[in-house]
């Protein structure tokens, strides 16, 4: 038996039946339709930036209050730090869901606008710096802009999860030992990295929207194709 012929054929069969069998073309079409109106304006990018700015002002205020209370009322400081962490945790599902949807759209978009990599330089947490470094290397190995856009969404999702982990760990340490300086520093760095991730998420949405806009304009200039 020609196993080198037979085995790939069997594997192909399983793949096609599993993936194409479950593939929902109608849902894909609805996603494409959803992409079109979003592409008509950059309003969603601005709205997202505004939402993130609002979030930032809340958790920055909470964290600064907690830092101030450290010298005066350590118990109150610990409470405020916990509220800060809970606020950020509450904002995370929205970000992760958006990144998931953007990753799905990224594979569909021609991504005509160049996609910059998520650079490690701005991150303060070591885990985020590592994620950024790996992301930059992989970014340059990928060929098409849409793959890079998809990869960017994946990296940002990892980043959000890593920051949440750092916030939880440092908050736990502060709950146990409020005077632990390092835990406060890690918390502050995690919030700073959260800001950066938000900014990267807004930039990602902007790339996606601009790519779609450009694609629509390019298509309008093209004469209709006939078979």
């Amino acid at each position: 038996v020609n196993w080198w012929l037979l085995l790939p054929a069997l594997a192909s069969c399983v793949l096609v039946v599993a993936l194409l069998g479950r593939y929902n073309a109608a849902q894909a079409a609805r996603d494409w339709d959803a992409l079109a109106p979003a592409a008509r304006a950059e309003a969603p990018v601005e709205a997202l930036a505004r939402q993130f700015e609002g979030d930032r002002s809340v958790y920055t205020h909470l964290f600064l209050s907690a830092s101030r209370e450290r010298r005066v009322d350590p118990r109150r400081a610990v409470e405020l730090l916990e509220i800060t962490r809970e606020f950020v945790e509450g904002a995370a599902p929205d970000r992760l869901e958006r990144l998931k949807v953007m990753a799905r759209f990224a594979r569909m978009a021609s991504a005509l606008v160049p996609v910059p990599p998520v650079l490690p330089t701005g991150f303060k947490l070591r885990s985020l710096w590592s994620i950024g470094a790996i992301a930059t290397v992989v970014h340059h190995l990928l060929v098409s802009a849409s793959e890079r856009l998809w990869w960017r969404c994946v990296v940002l999702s990892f980043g959000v999860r890593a920051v949440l982990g750092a916030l939880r760990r440092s908050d736990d340490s502060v709950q146990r030992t409020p005077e632990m300086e390092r835990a406060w520093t890690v918390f502050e760095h995690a919030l700073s990295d959260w800001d950066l991730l938000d900014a990267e998420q807004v930039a990602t949405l902007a790339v996606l929207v601009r790519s779609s806009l450009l694609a629509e304009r390019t298509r309008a200039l093209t004469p209709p194709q006939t078979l």
Partner: protein
Amino acid sequence: MTVELGYAVRIALLTTLLGLVYRGHYRDCWSFVVYIVAVASLEQLQALWPERYFTYSYYLLFQAFFDVLKFAVALEVAFRGFRSFPGAQARVRAILVLILGVTTWVALRGPFDVPLKALALDWQPRTQTAAIWVMTTVALLIVWYRLPVPAIQRAILLGFVPYLTVFTTLFSILRMLDVADGLPLAVVNVANGSAYLLACLWWAYSAWRPHARAGGFAAPPLLEASA
């Protein structure tokens, strides 16, 4: 048994053809219509005049014609599915050229100066595997880019790939046993005919299904502009 299976297959193919015409799906894949007409008519020719057309030379000739049509089906699905997506189209074109190059090389490595029976056993699995690879590539890229392909194109690929896998497996078994006649051939013919009948019934069901065009959705406005 094989004769009855042959008639059942031709009835299923005619039902598919009628469904494609009645529902208007023939416009989604012209080469599939040609394939169905070719299989139904040439196999009827074999059934009517077996002493003239049911020979290894004609079998190989007909199979070669069917194989060309299978490749045409896969390439037409790829062309129609990807034509509105320039980025994805460039990618699929490069991958298909690579696969067709490799499979041509694999096919050409087969023996030429052997009896027709041996040629059928050696040549058929190679060509069918090539068709499976091309169809799998197209199917996976459709899923990867989330393209809104018509339901009938999805059904065509979902029918072909499992059937061709069964066909390749059965021929590989015959090749391993090194027999192309007698009981093993009869058993393989029945198994192969049954598998093909299942594929034809699946196509007939898909061809007659209402709203099957474009995956059960109206053509998305984003694509209408460029189609």
